């Protein structure tokens, strides 16, 4: 029964796709997943969740499978999924969550290996998915466990109109960033008569600030390509954090605040985006969302005025032997461009769907088909051009094909600029992978986040902060088991020895 189901279902899937078209007649035939309910859990709000609901209705129409989306606060999502699955409650069949959490779920044996499902899937066009997402994001230990619905990494956004007007070039390093921020801060950027801000950066505790700090630190730490890693020494699992590179990143992050809104410390990404989309910021760090958000209703103030560029690079990088910052040269920074080392950080890694290993076979198949449906170019190439979905490009066809973007409201120039920045990031061989080992939520969301918050609040110095992070990380590593963590860290970077 089990095997029959497994073999039959992909066949049926093919039939279903056709039946989906045929079934639109009045005497609708029995649909393939009639009576099947797929319960999905993800974060709340229009972002991510709402599109799942809408596409879910289409999917139900096509296949009969009912899609139920449960939304829990982002901060609780990680442990809600883990406990639901680990404790055998199994009230959830599919989780849509950060790809960086997958190793912990896989390690606990909770996620279904999707390799076979993908192999039999005729519609997903797996090679159209950008290599970083295909190889690093969807896979854990060489096996595909996840299906991407959103591609995430951070970029720097700037007000092209303002910079052009003032004769400034888009920044490439943090020094240039600060220069631009200083020049634009206090100017009225959106013509409403009130002074606006040079730089907007979310800094609230227990929100997204730790992603920004990692984005800043990446270029200072990682030079040798994605497999080098920026968090630990793969040989000893010793944190690479108590050094001048991370301390510098902390200082840069704080310095940005000098050009930012007064209560920036209490701003999460939502507050920052509200400022950016109303045209109050000359510079900002964000995921890919700003591009499509500028096209949504409410983004009129910055429509076709936003430029995007790859995350700031640096001419000084970390010397791992001494923990000091040293100048870049050809051996130290093999991937440098004009002497500047870039390392776009795949912050969060993007929203991905994974399937509960304990779910019913038929539910698994229906769940997979739904994730695949979300991922397929026919759907996702439209969804990524809509800002409020929260979905950002992750397929080559989304980057090469300007047409949907122009249809969505971009001028050709803006579309090229935006997609160019994404392509520059994705094609950079030195792209930094997010931490993907058990305990990630604690390493980043508790320890790093807390020390960062204390540093920003002026409780401790940058040097103390990075030293504390190191101690905190070592403690977590010890608790989870050093060897185990080391092997998983290596696996997450694709190091096999």
């Amino acid at each position, binding site marked *: 029964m089990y095997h029959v189901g497994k073999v039959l279902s992909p066949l049926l899937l093919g039939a279903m796709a056709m039946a989906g078209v045929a079934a639109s007649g009045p005497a609708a035939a029995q649909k393939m997943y009639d009576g099947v309910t797929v319960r999905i859990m993800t974060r709340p709000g229009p972002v991510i969740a709402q599109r799942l609901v809408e596409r879910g209705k289409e999917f139900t129409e096509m296949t009969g499978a009912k899609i139920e989306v449960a939304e829990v606060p982002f901060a609780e999502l990680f442990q809600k999924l883990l406990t639901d*699955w*680990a404790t055998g409650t199994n009230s959830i069949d599919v989780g849509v969550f950060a790809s960086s959490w997958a190793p912990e779920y896989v390690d606990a044996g909770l996620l279904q290996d999707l390799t076979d499902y993908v192999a039999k899937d005729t519609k997903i066009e797996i090679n159209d998915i950008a290599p970083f997402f295909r190889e690093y994001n969807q896979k854990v230990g060489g096996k595909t466990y996840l299906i991407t619905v959103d591609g995430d990494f951070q970029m720097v956004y700037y007000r092209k109109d303002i910079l052009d007007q003032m004769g400034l070039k888009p920044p490439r390093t943090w020094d240039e960033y600060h220069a631009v921020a200083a020049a634009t801060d206090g100017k009225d950027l959106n013509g409403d008569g009130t002074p606006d801000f040079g730089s907007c950066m979310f800094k609230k*505790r227990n929100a997204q600030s730790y992603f920004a700090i990692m984005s800043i630190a990446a270029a200072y730490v990682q030079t040798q390509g994605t497999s080098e890693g920026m968090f630990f020494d793969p040989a000893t699992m010793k944190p690479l954090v108590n050094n001048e590179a991370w301390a510098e990143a902390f200082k840069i992050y704080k310095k940005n605040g000098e050009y930012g809104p007064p*209560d920036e410390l209490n701003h999460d990404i939502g507050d920052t985006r509200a400022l950016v989309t109303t045209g109050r910021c000359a510079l900002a760090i964000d995921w890919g969302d700003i591009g499509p958000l500028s096209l949504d209703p409410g983004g009129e103030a910055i429509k076709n005025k936003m430029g995007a560029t790859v995350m700031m690079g640096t001419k000084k990088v970390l010397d791992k032997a001494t923990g000091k910052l040293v100048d870049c040269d050809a051996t130290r920074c093999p991937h440098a461009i004009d002497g500047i080392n870039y390392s776009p950080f795949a912050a969060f890694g993007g929203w991905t769907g994974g399937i509960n290993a304990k779910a019913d076979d038929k539910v698994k198949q229906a769940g997979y088909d739904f994730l695949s449906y979300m991922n397929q170019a026919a759907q996702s190439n439209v969804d990524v051009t809509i800002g409020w979905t929260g979905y950002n490009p992750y397929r080559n066809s989304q980057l090469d094909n300007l047409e949907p973007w122009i249809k969505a409201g971009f001028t050709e120039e803006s579309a090229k600029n935006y997609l160019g920045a994404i392509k520059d990031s994705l094609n950079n061989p030195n792209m930094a992978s997010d931490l993907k080992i058990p305990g990630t939520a604690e390493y980043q969301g508790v320890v790093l986040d807390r020390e960062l*918050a204390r540093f920003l609040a002026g*409780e401790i110095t940058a040097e103390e902060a990075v030293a504390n992070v190191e101690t905190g990380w070592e403690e977590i590593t010890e608790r989870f088991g050093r060897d185990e963590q080391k092997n998983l860290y290596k696996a997450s970077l694709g190091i096999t020895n």
Partner: protein
Amino acid sequence: MTSGTGATTTSRLGRVAPAGPNASVTTRARLNEWLDRQSRQLFIAPAVIIILIFSVFPTIASLVLAFSNIRLRAGSYQVQFVGLRNFRKQFFGTEQFHFLGTFTSISLLGWIVTIASAASLIWWLYRYAKRDFTILGFIGRLITASMGFGLALLFSATLFSGNPFGTLGVTIFYVIVGCTIQFLIGLGLAVLCAQPIKGRTFFRVVFFIPLMITPIGIGYSFRMLADTTKGPFSPIWQWIGLGDFGWANHAWTARLFIVIGDSWQWIPFIFVILLAALENVSRDQVEAGQVDGASGWQVFKEITWPQIAPVAATVMLIRIIEAFKLVDLPNIMTSGGPGIATESMTLHSFFAWRALNLGDSAAIAYLLLFVTVVLCVSFFNLLVLKRLRPA
């Protein structure tokens, strides 16, 4: 019910079950009889059992968690006993700054406060030992005094020496400052409302409303109100030159805002009960006092206050117990920021739980329980009971 009643009466008096003509009635009667005999237990059993299962047992189990390292595996928990490690970490290890605070050297002011508090506590113990000594009472007071001294030392080493304090200090701050403000304002409002005014019902209803509102809602509303750019007071902030001032950027303003939100919700509770107490104060005595020429303050101090003091002490005890549990407001308004300035112990524990570090989470929760119990029991024994006991 009626037939059963009749049957049991017989059984009560005659000890013999009536030989009823109808068998089913007899069964029911027997059942009723049995129930009545067990009623002693049956009345109280549900409450005791439910408390045992959902309160006592979890508390014990939580203690085991506090001494362990727990990991979730598919279908099970992996528990590893680690002894005192989770607690050591809070007091001496990497979490020290987070739980207790950052320590450098104690300043002169810090020393003065430490020594003064130590001296007064010793004096207090000495006086007790001389006057009416019982071993149990002395041990209790010793625990209270140690806790008092510990807290005095904590604040001397942090607050009075210019260092930030941790979640323990923040919790105590919420309890002491919050409850004091709430008591004073609540009492003040109750006294105002007890005056011969028109529309007392209106004021009472209006003042009562905040207590009904979910703390989450209050958290968001106050965040909205305090917003420096979008909030209703932003023109005022701009006007007094504080337009660029972010309340969330500074430890003390952030804490203050949380106390204001908390007070908005809880003042009504104190107000309502104290008002009821004031209305029960005999008018004759007050009027007699007034006729005798006592000032308003004298009347209050000599006649009114002694009568409402027991109620005031109890209402404050309730409030203090609840204040220790504060979590929703800092979670919503600041997420514990800036830094760790507004993080209460419940929030601290909650954050650890959220990353599934159950051992640390339980350890912090237990420390909170310990502090709460010692302080509340001290308050109860030393203030409430003293008030109730005729001197």
